[in-house]
């Protein structure tokens, strides 16, 4: 187990390193950026400002030297901006809990709803309840979160006093206010996933229920409840758990971006969209790398947890 965790974290580091290289090449060393751009935003400057910018950011140094210097400043948080941007790292760490609240809440809601509905489907298998739930779930996962978030914000949050239009309250300060700010974003983000999870869990449950050892358990005279809980559910949840893990780590750089923009939640998504709108290059690189690190770490942690739940996943090859 420890060996697996170490290997997985090593792979995560390698991925983060590759991502940082790509971000560096994309945003820093693409040749046709005018250096004066680095000082004055979008305006093209004189030769003088060009020279100042080249010196300030060390653009004449060899690329590896520039890379190391940039990465150091990014990890310390003291990236030099064109405008005033304060400490990027602490700003990012302040925004992270908002995003994690959104993503964790939405993932839990989607899992609970998907699991509950799938169990209902299996209980009423082939009857009208099953068909209704399956159809509704299929419709739910065709609804893009972007559309749901936009509609919920415009027609529920904006038009009623129940939910705030924007902002965020930390969980530790006011749990009720925290939930009030997040309910609608949670629904927007969770609904499509709930539909998809319902289908995965249902298929997995039905497949497991047909296994020989489930028949054996029934033949032993175990109660139906016990058969479902101890024998079917435990094994049927293995494939969905992997998908849940992947989705969780993807959500941070996925729907979090636009759901936060729409609901005005001050998380990393809103921060990303504001920073990229400012055309301020150094913080853009910093933010890209922070996001990459968070996504990579989240997926490593999730993989380690799933491997802990299911020892069969601790194979030497990380992914087939």
């Amino acid at each position, binding site marked *: 187990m420890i060996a697996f965790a170490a290997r997985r974290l090593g792979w995560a580091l390698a991925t983060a390193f590759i991502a940082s290289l790509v971000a560096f090449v994309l945003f820093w060393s693409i040749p046709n950026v005018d250096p004066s751009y680095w000082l004055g935003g979008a305006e093209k400057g004189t030769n003088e400002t060009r020279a100042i910018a080249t010196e300030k950011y060390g653009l004449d140094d060899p690329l590896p030297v520039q890379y190391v210097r940039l990465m150091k400043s990014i990890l310390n948080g003291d990236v030099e901006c064109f405008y005033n941007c304060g400490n990027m790292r602490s700003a990012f760490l302040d925004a992270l809990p908002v995003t994690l609240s959104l993503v964790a809440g939405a993932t839990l809601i989607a899992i609970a709803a998907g699991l509950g509905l799938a169990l209902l489907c299996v209980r009423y298998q082939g009857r009208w309840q099953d068909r209704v739930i399956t159809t509704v779930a*299929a419709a739910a996962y*065709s609804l893009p979160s*972007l559309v749901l978030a*936009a509609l919920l914000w415009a027609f529920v949050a904006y038009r009623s006093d129940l939910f705030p239009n924007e902002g965020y309250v930390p969980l530790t300060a006011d749990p009720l206010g925290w939930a009030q700010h997040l309910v609608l974003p949670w629904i927007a983000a969770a609904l499509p996933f709930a539909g998809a999870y319902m289908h995965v869990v249902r298929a997995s449950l039905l497949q497991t229920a047909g296994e020989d050892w489930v028949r054996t358990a029934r033949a032993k005279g175990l109660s139906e409840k016990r058969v479902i809980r101890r024998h079917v559910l435990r094994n049927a949840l293995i494939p969905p758990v992997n998908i849940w893990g992947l989705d969780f780590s*993807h959500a941070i*750089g996925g729907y979090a971006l*636009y759901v936060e923009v729409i609901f005005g939640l001050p998380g990393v998504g809103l921060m990303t969209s504001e920073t990229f709108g400012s055309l301020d290059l150094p913080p853009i690189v910093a933010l890209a790398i922070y996001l*990459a690190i968070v996504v990579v770490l989240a997926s490593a942690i999730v993989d380690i947890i799933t491997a802990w739940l299911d020892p069969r996943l601790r194979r030497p090859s990380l992914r087939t």
Partner: protein
Amino acid sequence: MAFLAAPLYADVVAGTGPSDNHVTDQVTIAGEPEYVVSLDGVPIGPTWRSEFLIGADENGRDLMVRVLYGGRTSLLIGAAALALTLLLGVPIALAAGYFGGRTDSLISRLLDVIWSFPALLVGFLLASAVNLSGADIGPVTIEPGSKLIPIVVIGLVYVPYLARPLRGEVRALRERPFVEAARAAGFGPVAVMRSELLPHLLTTTLVLAPLLFANAVVLESALSFLGAGVPAPEPSFGVLIEDGIDNTIFSPHLLLAPCVALVLVVLSLSGLAEGLRRALDPRGPVNVEVVHGQ
């Protein structure tokens, strides 16, 4: 399943351009003339007649026309991106699955790296980078703000979502007797791939393609919404949704129309995928991995 997207290509029927202003025009409703944009700046709502069928926006542009043109842009980008994904993903999967060994582990690791990041984040970063400075890739020069940017970005991002399942299939097929027979008969690797392996990948590819198409359209909307896709004056679903959110106080129709259109497109595409799956591979599982590539 009716392919609801089809009428979007027939937008030649529109009587006015998507960016034409009619701010000062009047339309006659129930015998009374009414301004398209009222004097205090509120655009007209749905009229349910040929001009301004579902209303106008704050610049007096016909919303139905904008939704149709926006749909065309979004679908065009989605289709082009899908073509790029297929062009790159299928050969990559064939090479990785057929040669195995080092080629396979190199390609698979590379795909894993892209795969481990969310599609929207990768797309957003790539598109922003190119939008900042343009790109010179060999003979191809991409100007900032070009429509090629979302196409290339979305096409690249979804390569792993196609190549990973296909590669697994190729690996399974490689051990089958008919492939061995072809090799024994002296076919080279390329000939084996083309004549023996490729036809077997058709089913999976056909089922995945509409799902990837739907995902590409949704990703394009999200990118345009965040300002990293289609640049603003030109309509696309994402641009229209953003417009709608900005003007939701007085004109809810501006938000509803593109949302409904986007959902209809996605629904018809996933319906097409489901139909193809039932026809071609009735026992196959629903491919949820692809559904989640947003």
